[in-house]
């Protein structure tokens, strides 16, 4: 039944968005994670990318996390000569995580998750109403 497939597709959306939330949480948690060695690279911000994928069993076009890739933007250089991660000149590379960008991304993931929840609710209510025709 197509409504059942709709629920499965929305469930794939829930899974994808929850993974996106996880990646955002990792970015926020590592906003200050500097390099392990002096002069090395700090934590690189990661981004989840999605792709459409047909589910073989149901035939619905669900969403799947294609990859979690590193953000290629430049690190910020901060002068902190006392830090163990500082290079020869006293500069420390900070992660390319921007709190505002992460907050906006998190809001988008949250809204998308809610949209999928609403779609599941609608499909379920339609199914129940159809069954109620028998009663």
């Amino acid at each position, binding site marked *: 039944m197509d409504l*059942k497939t709709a*629920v*499965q597709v929305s*469930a794939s959306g*829930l*899974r994808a968005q*929850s993974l996106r939330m996880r990646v955002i949480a990792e970015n926020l948690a590592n906003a200050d994670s500097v390099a392990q060695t002096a002069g090395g690279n700090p934590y690189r911000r990661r981004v989840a990318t999605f792709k459409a994928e047909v589910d073989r069993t149901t035939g619905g076009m669900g969403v799947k996390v294609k990859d979690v890739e590193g953000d290629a933007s430049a690190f910020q250089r901060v002068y902190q000569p006392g830090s163990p991660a500082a290079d020869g000149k006293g500069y420390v590379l900070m992660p390319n995580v921007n709190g505002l960008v992460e907050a906006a991304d998190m809001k988008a993931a949250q809204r998308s998750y809610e949209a999928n929840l609403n779609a*599941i609710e609608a499909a*379920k209510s339609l*199914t*129940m109403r159809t*069954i*109620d025709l*028998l*009663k």
Partner: protein
Amino acid sequence: MSIGALDAALSYGRAAGIGKSGGLGDLGSKTGIGGSTGAAASGGFGNLVEQMVTDTASSLRTAEAASAKQVAGKGDLIDVVTAIGAAETALDTVVAVRDRVVGAYSDIMRMQI
């Protein structure tokens, strides 16, 4: 629930087989059983209900397994929710169909001969 519903369905299937010329016979003949009145498991509606009960039981079992996994901390919450939703839908459908079949059976029982 199962025995009463299956009995009713079986009788209803036999009745459908006897009155083959009507719409009920058409339903029965779809599975190729409408005409026969002998074998116990050959009622069209009986098979239908039996199939539904089996399907429902298997989806309930899936939901139970998913819940048990979740409680043990190994499962996926989304899997649990979708499995329970599917099981609920299947159970509601089978109960609604059962009610209709039992209702039809009672109607036949009350029929003036």
